[in-house]
């Protein structure tokens, strides 16, 4: 009995143009596609925004696993993305910088919420006025606290940024310096 190959194989056998069956890309684009779909967040929660972040990660309604970010690492050395969720006190600034230094490149930073973007409503002596004063930020997600859907939107924006080939924020700072 004759074996009928599946449809994609039949199409491949019928093809006369190479472009019909082979997709070409650059190594950078392929790497960007892979890394954008596997951005592993670092489990780092400071204050109220952390509750919405944990809700985004664990709750089936918002389900960040479908974007490849399900694997939350407890150590920064294995994480790609640090989501600074919450207000940054001056006392916490040094640990955050240390954690950021411990992450391996390429690494991205999401400033989640108003407090980590610009200190939010806390314009006072105790809060660092924006975490971008100590670490370079890639994506800012406004809100107080932002809904989990908003954080997912931030994650998707980050993925688009990675796929577009834009280097992470520290690379831009290095090139500025």
């Amino acid at each position, binding site marked *: 009995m004759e074996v009928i190959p599946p449809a994609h194989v039949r199409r491949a056998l019928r093809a006369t143009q190479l472009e019909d069956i082979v997709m070409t890309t650059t190594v950078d684009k392929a790497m960007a596609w892979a890394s954008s779909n596997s951005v592993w967040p670092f*489990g*780092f*929660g*400071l*204050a*109220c925004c*952390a*509750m*919405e972040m*944990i*809700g985004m990660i*664990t*709750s*089936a*309604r918002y389900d960040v696993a479908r974007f490849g970010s399900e694997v939350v690492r*407890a150590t920064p050395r294995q994480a790609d993305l640090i989501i600074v969720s*919450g*207000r940054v*006190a001056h*006392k*916490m600034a040094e*640990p955050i910088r240390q*954690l950021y230094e411990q992450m391996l490149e390429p690494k991205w930073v999401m400033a989640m919420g108003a407090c980590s973007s610009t200190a939010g*409503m*806390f*314009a*006072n*002596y*105790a*809060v660092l006025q924006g975490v971008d004063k100590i670490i370079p930020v890639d994506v800012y997600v406004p809100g*107080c*606290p932002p*809904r989990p859907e908003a954080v997912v939107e931030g994650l998707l924006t980050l993925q688009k940024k990675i796929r577009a080939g834009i280097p992470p924020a520290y690379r831009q700072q290095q090139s500025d310096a």
Partner: protein
Amino acid sequence: MATTEPRSGQRAWPKLDVPSPTPSVTVPSSDNPDLLEINLGPNHPSTHGVLRLVVHLDGEIVVGLRNELGYVHTGIEKNIEQKTYWKAITYVPRMDYLSFFSGEVAFCMAVEKLLELEVPRRAEYLRVIFQELTRLHSHLIFLGTGSVDLGGIALLFYCFRDRDYVLDLFEMVTGQRMHPRYGQVGGVAEDIPRGFDRKARQTIAYLRGRIDEYEDLIGQNPIWRGRTIGVGVMPPEYAIRMAQSGPNIRASGIPWDLRTANGGYGAYRELDYQPVVGQNGDVFDRFWVRVQEMRASLDLIEKCLDGLPEGPVIADDRKVVLPPRHELHTSMESLIHHFKIVTEGYRVPPGEVYAPIESARGEFGFYMISDGGPKPWRARLRPPSFVTLSALAALATGHYLADLIAILASIDPVMGDCDR
């Protein structure tokens, strides 16, 4: 009458001394050169927020413990002094961000006490409904993160999924999931919409089934029981000397609950509520008391929904309360009052008050001083987690490191509340 004697059939309370000279620090007593001093935090998967513990270990046993706080100190109290009362309500839920509505109510009750303002009955009932929803929210997160600390990751997912149903109710009424700024001086901001009653009852019925499952999961699980029963026992004398409140002191057998003390406050005085009391004061009991409190919260919400009175949801005093928005189009006085209240603020008679309520964490109250002006002179929160953490050192010393994590999870600190 509460007693500190052990109940019949229970072994005697272990002796737990308050450490000396510093009550919140235990220092290792031996000169053992093999003692290891490690640093737990401020970023650690098992600390609740940013808490740093400096722990001295003899092998696996904790022989010395010290807390380092302040990693999320936000200076909220200083900011509150700069804003008018109406604007300062926004800062308050961000302190204890798990039982956020309790914070709003505490602030509003302190201001109402200074103003000697009456709150209508419907508003009091609505406040109770949302305080209990907030208690559910806090205890669900406590249970989820607590069980993750002990290694049982499944409960994290279940509890956060159920937390979404509770937050749906907040969103239905206020438009915002967390920190809704729904509590206002004089009552609540808006009335509940049509359909809230039905959706709330559906959520209650659903959550009752879930709590049955949680009780089975943690109540019958031999690993859970082995890790939590008899661990971190807090005797009642120690609890009182270290000023513990909330579920922590109730797990040690003392039926102290501000919702029922001297009759209670607000609508709790009309609802017949019995505090949930534990027996052994160990980690298991602290978890168990909170799970039973979740059940009690559902009963309370149902009672409030059944007996919700008609009427206004905010006090009638237009010098303090914003007028309804539809009046701004037609009434000049309403427009002027709205303008003055929002920009300049209403003036509160001078005085100092302390108005404690029962949040999910314990005694939670504002000490508020007014100078007769539109801004608070001093608004200090009595932070339940701050006081709870001062008791951690003696509770955890002598236990294993893994037990330290369990004890820390069971006393339920929230660093936003602790550091403010």
